[in-house]
């Protein structure tokens, strides 16, 4: 029901705007014109079978993959390009890096830095990239660890944490840069079933705090409960989109129905 409430406030600012995004790996076209809009404060879930292009699209949003066609903007800025008149100029690597600072990302396989403790993982980018003092960053790392339910784990190395704990540190690490937008790439797919809940709980907390999130997920329960909108993707296109109840409970397309009958 919250979904309908939020979608009624259509004048909220647009955080992510994708228009006809195309992407090919060699000769294989993996994104065939994706249109998508994420409003500030909304949780958008991308669902669909493996190989449908969801993760690739998510990686395009912070320019980990370059797009071959269409346009993609975050917070009003084109991703990876600057527009001058009728021309698009590719950004320098340092400018791309600057853009990414405002987009947090959480990966399927956590990708914590194994040679750093939990606190060091979290404070690394704020100190190195934002120039925060180590003392301030360290305190904030402790606060963030507490927020994801890992108070007191500052000095543990990732190898000594469970998968669920590692993923929560990874979320804290992304939050440390205070990004207005968070991307989640199948954040629970590499976890043992009993550890999925603790990560989803942290994500639900973020959503209720008003964080704008784009989540690639196979957790239909999460999409239904937390998502403001759901996009079903298959074979590089958005087959249908809408509120969770529209897409997950009353799908109109055969492909959506076929997929949901397998996962639900």
């Amino acid at each position, binding site marked *: 029901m919250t979904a309908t409430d939020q979608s009624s406030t259509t004048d909220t600012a647009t955080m992510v705007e994708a228009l006809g995004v195309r992407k090919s790996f060699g000769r294989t076209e993996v994104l065939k014109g994706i249109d998508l809009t994420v409003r500030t404060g909304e949780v958008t879930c991308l669902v669909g079978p493996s190989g449908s292009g969801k993760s690739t699209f998510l990686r395009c949003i912070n320019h980990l993959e370059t797009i071959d066609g269409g346009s993609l903007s975050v917070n009003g800025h084109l991703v990876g390009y600057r527009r001058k008149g009728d021309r698009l100029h590719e950004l320098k690597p340092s400018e791309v*890096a600057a853009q*990414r600072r405002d987009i947090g990302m959480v990966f399927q396989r956590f*990708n914590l830095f194994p040679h750093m403790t939990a606190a060091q993982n979290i404070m690394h980018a704020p100190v190195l990239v934002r120039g925060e003092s180590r003392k301030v960053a360290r305190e904030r790392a402790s606060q963030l660890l507490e927020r994801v339910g890992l108070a007191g784990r500052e000095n543990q190395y990732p190898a000594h944490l469970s998968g669920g704990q590692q993923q929560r540190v990874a979320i804290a690490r992304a939050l440390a*840069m205070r990004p207005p937008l968070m991307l989640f790439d199948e954040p629970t797919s590499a976890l043992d079933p009993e550890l999925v809940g603790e990560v989803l709980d942290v994500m639900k907390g973020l959503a209720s705090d008003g964080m704008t999130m784009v989540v690639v997920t196979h957790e239909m329960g999460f999409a239904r409960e937390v998502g403001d909108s759901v996009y079903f993707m298959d074979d590089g296109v958005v087959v249908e989109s809408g509120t969770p109840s529209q897409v997950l409970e009353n799908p109109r397309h055969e492909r959506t129905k076929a997929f949901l009958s397998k996962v639900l």
Partner: protein
Amino acid sequence: MNSTPTSTAPPERSDARVAPADLEVVPLRHWGRWVAAAIMMLFAASFAWSLARNPNLEWSVVGEYLFKDFVIKGVGITLMLTVVAMVIGTVGGVLIAVMRLSSNPVLQAIAGFYVWFFRGTPLLVQIIFWGFLAALYERLVIGIPFTDITFASFDTNSVVGPMTAAVLALSLNEVAYAAEIVRGGIGSVDDGQDDAASALGLTKVQAMRTITLPQAMRVIVPPMGNETVTMLKSTALVSVIGGKDLLTAVQSVYAQNYKVIPLLVVAALWYLALTSILSIGQYFLEKKYGKGYGTASMGRRWLGRGVAR
């Protein structure tokens, strides 16, 4: 014809019921091991005996020369060559490795050619080559390429003496090997690490310096330790161009007094002592870069490390 059953139970069962603690355990005797050990000790003893009785070894001469000034000086130069060649080799190796991994095809090709050339020719040949550099270029010139503009010009032999030639030969050779080790180390770091660093807004240089290289070090340090040990021993090769190292020092003395064997023993003892110290240093380096990976795997890699060449 007495058919009354005896009161004793079947023998097997009563054995099994006795608590093991009450029984004497007879360990398996490994006779083969004893025989092999005895044979090896016999050989070792006879070898030691032959050495001890051999007057040509002249242990008193060994003792006399072990800490002589010229020997210590030679040890110093050997150490200096090792350190300088390894420092230049490592820095250059990182450079060539990064060139090979860059997306610029010209840099890639040049780095590939460099490694191919310096690994494909014997170090001894390279040393002699640098020693005779003046035969290839009589004068060394600093200026703008393909023009007649020159800023400075030197007589090759005055600039590249035996020591410079030795440093050049050892360093440039080491660059090629180090480059391959560093490249392997960088390649061993998971791609996801780079994704994570990029997503946090780190620049490529920041990601390489603070995320990729520190993790690559774990893979790089053990073979580079071996490289250092190998380098220490390879410095002896520069004696062919009069490199003033430890071997050159003892050679120049035994050329006069003919105490060849005792002086070689002096050199060998020093090489052994230095390589042993290096191995200890390597242990602590590995420990430092193994942080966050648990200690069990460290020990395994320490014992299981292979030779680099």
